[in-house]
C-alpha cells in the first residue's frame, strides 16, 4: 500500500497545481453573482434558490473538473513517459491505477468540499435550511464525482483525449437517465429494444440514484437506510469500474 500511497501523493501534488483545479473560483463567481441577483429579485426563501443553484453548479463543475483533470493527467503521463518510470518501479500495475484514483479522489473530493463550504457561507446570511440533508447531498455529490473519475479512467485507458472526454461525458449524461431508458424499453413492443435498454440500464452507472440534491435543505434528512444505500451503491460501482480498468491496464502493451 506504500506504493499506492506514493502514486496518490504524486498525483495529488501534480493535480493541485493544474489550472483546471481552479474551477473553484468559477464557482465562487457563480455563487456570489447568483446570491446578489437572487436576493434582489426573489420574494422570500432566497436561501433555497441559492442552494438549488449552488448544488447544481457544484455537480456540473465537479464532474467537468473530474473528467478533464483525470483524462488530461493520464494522457500527459503517458505522453511524457512518466508512466514508464512509475510502472517500472511497481510490483504490479494495478497499484498505479489505484494510486491514481486515490490521488484524483482526494483532490476532487477536497474541491467539492470547498465548494460546498462556500455555498454554505453564501446561504447562511439569507436564512436557515435543513443542514443535515445538505451535508448528505454534499457527500453524495463527492461520491458521484468519484464514479465519474473511475469512468474517465476507464475511457482514458483505451482512447484518445478527445474520445475519452466525449465518452465520459456521454456516460455521465446518459447515467442520469437510466431509469427513463429502462421504462422506455419496458413500454416498447420491440424485444430487441427491450433487451438493449435492459443492457444499458445494468451497464451504465445510475447517477440519478445517487443524486440527493433534490431534497437537500428542504427535508430534515434522508433516511439512514437510503443514505447508506447510496454510499454502498457508489462504492460498489466505483470498485467495479476500477477493477475493469485495472484488468484492461494490466493486459495492455504500453508501446
Amino acid at each position, binding site marked *: 500500500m506504500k506504493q499506492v500511497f506514493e502514486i496518490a501523493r*504524486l498525483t495529488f501534488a*501534480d493535480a493541485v*497545481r493544474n489550472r483546471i483545479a481552479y474551477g473553484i473560483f468559477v464557482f465562487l463567481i457563480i455563487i456570489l453573482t447568483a446570491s446578489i441577483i437572487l436576493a434582489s429579485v426573489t420574494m422570500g426563501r432566497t436561501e433555497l434558490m441559492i442552494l438549488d443553484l449552488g448544488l447544481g453548479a457544484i455537480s456540473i463543475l465537479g464532474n467537468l473538473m473530474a473528467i478533464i483533470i483525470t483524462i488530461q493527467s493520464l494522457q500527459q503521463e503517458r505522453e511524457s513517459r512518466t508512466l*514508464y518510470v*512509475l510502472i*517500472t518501479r511497481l510490483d504490479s500495475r494495478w497499484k498505479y491505477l489505484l494510486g491514481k484514483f486515490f490521488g484524483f479522489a482526494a483532490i476532487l473530493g477536497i474541491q467539492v468540499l470547498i465548494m460546498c463550504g462556500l455555498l454554505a457561507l453564501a446561504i447562511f446570511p439569507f436564512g436557515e435550511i435543513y443542514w443535515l440533508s445538505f451535508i448528505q447531498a454534499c457527500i453524495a455529490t463527492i461520491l458521484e464525482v468519484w464514479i465519474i473519475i473511475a469512468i474517465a479512467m476507464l475511457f482514458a485507458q483505451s482512447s484518445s483525449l478527445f474520445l475519452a472526454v466525449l465518452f465520459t461525458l456521454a456516460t455521465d449524461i446518459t447515467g442520469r437517465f437510466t431509469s427513463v431508458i429502462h421504462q422506455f424499453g419496458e413500454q416498447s413492443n420491440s424485444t430487441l429494444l427491450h433487451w438493449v435498454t435492459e443492457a444499458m440500464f445494468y451497464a451504465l452507472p445510475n447517477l440519478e440514484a445517487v443524486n440527493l440534491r433534490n431534497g437537500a435543505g428542504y427535508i430534515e434528512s434522508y433516511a439512514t437506510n437510503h443514505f447508506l444505500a447510496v454510499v454502498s451503491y457508489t462504492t460498489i460501482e466505483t470498485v467495479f469500474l476500477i477493477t475493469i480498468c485495472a484488468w484492461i491496464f494490466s493486459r495492455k502493451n504500453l508501446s
Partner: protein
Amino acid sequence: MKSLLQVKGLSFTLPTGHVVQGRKTILDNISFDIPKGSATAYLGPNGAGKTSTFRILCGLAKSDSGQIYFDGKRILGGLPPKQFGFMPEQPYFYKNLTPNELLTGLGRLSGLNGSSLTKSILEWSEKLHFTKILNQRLATCSKGQVQRVGLAQALIHQPDFILLDEPLSGLDPLGRECVSEVIQSEIKRGATMLFSSHILADAENMCENVIVLKEGTILFSGNMKTLIAAENNWSIRTVWQDESLPVFETTETSRNVDGTIRIKGSSEKVRDDVITHILASSGATLVSVEPERRTLEQAFVNLLKGENQ
C-alpha cells in the same frame, strides 16, 4: 564473464490497423547476452526495434515469444523493480512538480526514505549539475536539465542494471561529458548497463560491447573493438606529377587541398600493389602510408549497408 541479462529468441509484433488487423514485425527472434558489470551499446537506425526491446525488458509490453533471464532467473513481467533503473527516451515528467518533489516521490517508490533519500537527491543533483533547479518547476527547466533529472531518477536507488534509452540526446557537449562521467562511474561501481544512442562517438567511448540491430534482427553482437577492427583500412598519400590518376580497384582516390593524392582502401594486397606502383613510377613520390582506424560510426554505417556481410 557471467551474464546478468540473457535474451533468447525474443519476437514482438504490433497491430498495423484498427479494422483489418495486420501485424508488423518489430523484433524477429533476437538473442543476446549482457555480461555482468559491462556497458553495452544498443544501436540501430530509427525503427530498428531498440525502444521496443527496452519496453519488453521493463515489462511495459509483452513479447510474442522468447525468454528473458535476469541473474539466471527467468522473468515474465519485466525486470525486478528494485534491481534496475530505467530512463525512457526524452522524458519530460510532471510539469507542475519540481525535480526535488519528483525525485522524492520516485525514490520512495523505489524503497528509499528519510535522510538517505534527501542525501541521495542532493548527491545526484550535484553529480549531474542540476542543484540550482532542484526547487524549480519542471515546466521551466530546459530539455537538457530535464534529461539530467531523468538520468538521476534511474540511478537514485543504485540499481544493479541500468537501462537508458537515448540518455545523451538533447544535451550540449558539457552535458554529454557530465552524463558520460556519471555513466562510467556507475560501471566502476559494478552496475551493468545497456543503452541506446544515436551519438555513436559517445557510445564508442563508454561501452565495451555493442549490439547492432536493423529491422528487428541483430546484425552484430559482441565486442566493440571487434566491430571497429573488422577491416584493416589504410590510407596512402602521394604526390603525382601526371595529370591522369591511375585507378586501383577497391580503393577510393581523392585530391587533398595541398595537391597531394590520397588513396584509401582495406585490402592489404591492394595496398602493397599501390605502394609498388608508386615506387616504380618516376613521376610519383610516396609521402606517407598510414593505417586508418575506423570509428564506430563508420563501422556502423558499413554494417548497415551490408559491406561487412
